[in-house]
């Protein structure tokens, strides 16, 4: 798997975190781009724009989870299943145990985390294509198990009227309220991902995906860090699933199929898998597409497919790769 980096022409964005002064130029560009956008929905104040903005944040959270997994060169096709595990854990906790919303998200994270560790320990020894196939099988298995346990999952009817999200008694199911909550949740997720990736843990991730044999020869235990990356990515997906359940108010095994994982991959690759802001960009560009092209649903899927192949081929760094390069030019380096 590690030769993956060598074969495709990666632009010179050093995936490796280069010391402070380079960071400020790039983060300045991203802040200039995203802060006004984040405020836009509050200014427009239309329920449709809130709906889109909430979906963008939701997709960005779940996709940034996948971004952590891809950091150790592992692609997971089970991201839908982990979002599903989180969604069911959170929804059932709220419905059956009356647990408050935030605590149910913690339970969602725990459930997804435990499942990820178990699966990770089982399959992370596999190389490249085999690992991806195992996650593909796991995603189908999750849907199958949910259908086989109608008492828990509600079977094909799923769980309906999941109580609206409320924090400390204050119901936030109103569009502006929920948007502010999910925007903060996205910011928190990006902060956690940034902390992981710039810490020694992130260094180990980059070493493992950069040159596995040398990483081992430097004393890095590959399995432990691969499972760590896989678990943290899946936990983020689980939390995202929990928030989605509260917002949509309904989940069923059909909401977390193979195509859910596919959409996450497309957003990550289009946005850019080498930068923390890649998932946010991918979500921003691709989420509004289905709403705008609502009537011709098929056209939207075709555009998804074409974007995926084109970006894979011509811009492996994705859109954020372009912005990184733009930021580099801005800071007079290169």
């Amino acid at each position, binding site marked *: *798997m*590690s*030769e*993956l980096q060598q*074969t*495709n022409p990666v632009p010179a964005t050093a995936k490796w975190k280069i010391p402070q002064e380079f960071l400020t130029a790039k983060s300045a560009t991203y802040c200039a781009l995203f802060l006004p956008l984040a405020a836009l929905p509050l200014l427009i104040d239309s329920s449709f724009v809130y709906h889109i903005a909430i979906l963008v944040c939701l997709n960005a959270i779940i996709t940034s989870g996948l971004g952590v997994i891809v950091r150790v060169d592992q*692609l997971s096709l089970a991201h839908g299943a982990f979002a599903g595990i989180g969604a069911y854990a959170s929804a059932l906790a709220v419905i059956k145990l009356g647990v408050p919303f935030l605590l149910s998200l913690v339970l969602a994270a725990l459930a997804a985390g435990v499942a990820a560790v178990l699966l990770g320990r*089982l*399959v992370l*020894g*596999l*190389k*490249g*294509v*085999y690992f*991806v*196939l*195992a996650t*593909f*099988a*796991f995603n*189908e*298995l999750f849907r*199958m*198990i949910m*259908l*086989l346990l109608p008492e828990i999952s509600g079977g094909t009817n799923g769980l309906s009227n999941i109580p609206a999200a409320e924090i400390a008694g204050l119901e936030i199911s109103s569009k502006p309220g929920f948007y502010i909550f999910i925007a903060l949740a996205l910011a928190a997720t990006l902060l956690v991902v940034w902390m992981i990736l710039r810490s020694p843990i992130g260094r180990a991730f980059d070493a493992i995906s950069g040159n*596995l*044999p040398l990483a081992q020869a430097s004393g890095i235990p590959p399995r432990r860090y691969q499972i760590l990356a896989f678990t943290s990515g899946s936990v983020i997906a689980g939390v995202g699933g929990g928030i989605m359940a509260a917002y949509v108010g309904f989940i069923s095994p059909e909401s977390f199929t*193979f195509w859910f994982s*596919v959409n996450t*991959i*497309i957003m990550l*690759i289009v946005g850019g898998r080498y930068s923390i802001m890649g998932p946010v960009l991918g979500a921003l560009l691709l989420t509004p597409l289905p709403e705008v092209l609502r009537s*011709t*649903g*098929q*056209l939207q*899927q*075709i555009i*998804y*497919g*074409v*974007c*995926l*192949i084109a970006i*894979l*081929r011509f811009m*492996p760094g994705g859109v954020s790769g372009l912005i990184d390069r733009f930021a580099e030019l801005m800071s007079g380096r290169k």
Partner: protein
Amino acid sequence: MSFEAFLIQTGVNGLILGALYLLMAVGFTLVFGSLRVVNFAHGEFYMLGGFAAYFTTVTMGLPAIASIPLAFLFVAVLGLFCERAVFRPFRGDELNGMIASIGLALILQNGALMLFGPMPLAMPPFAEGLTRFGSIVIPTSRLLAIVISAAVLAIFYVVMMHTRVGRAVRAMVQDAEVASTFGIHPGLVYPLGFALGVGLAAVAGAVMAPLFSVSPFTGHTPLLKAFLVVVLGGLGSIPGAAIASLAVGLIESYTATFYGSLAADGLILLLAVIMLVMRPNGLLGRAMRVG
């Protein structure tokens, strides 16, 4: 029907199912073997094979038997184009090749949805009625489907074993580097291997179109079944796929008949995950060259 006859009937159903799955899986394993790419669009080529069969028999009114070669030809040519446009740039890069195949699956499925509409289309069966062997009953249309599949697989076997193209593709499946030292030009063999593989998927689609109905959504189940057979039989191994598809057919038939189809699908998926973990190379697959 006595209990023994019931057990034998379920076994016969399983063998029929296995033969159908083999036709679906052999194309998938050939594409992986020659191109080292897991093709997530395999189901879509099966579906297009079904539509090709529908148009040759229903719209153009040709005899049903003619739909098989025409479906193969139409989809094989499409396969050549897809290999050139989508897979060539990712040769030797399995992960990106796989993601690209997901993009291709999206394009083909939704393209078919826009062209042919969502309604399932029914086709006249190859044959009406049923054939009895003692108390065992086999729908004639399925018996014919098995005969056709057997014929197609026989032709495929002959092509692979006794023609230059076949030997070249087989050499590429064994070991791409060694093969190229013998002057086998990958630029030629890769598209041929891919076209042959997806052509077989189209034949499976054409054979099964009259049994079930044809619609843009029929691709997902065959992809899952082909994937299970190939994982159990071993990626890139055609004999492995043969054994595994009969095993999957039998397991599914017995489990589905006694515990319902959902439990059957779940059981087989579990077996696939266990096989992937215990023996990633499957029953007869070659070890993935590591690093």
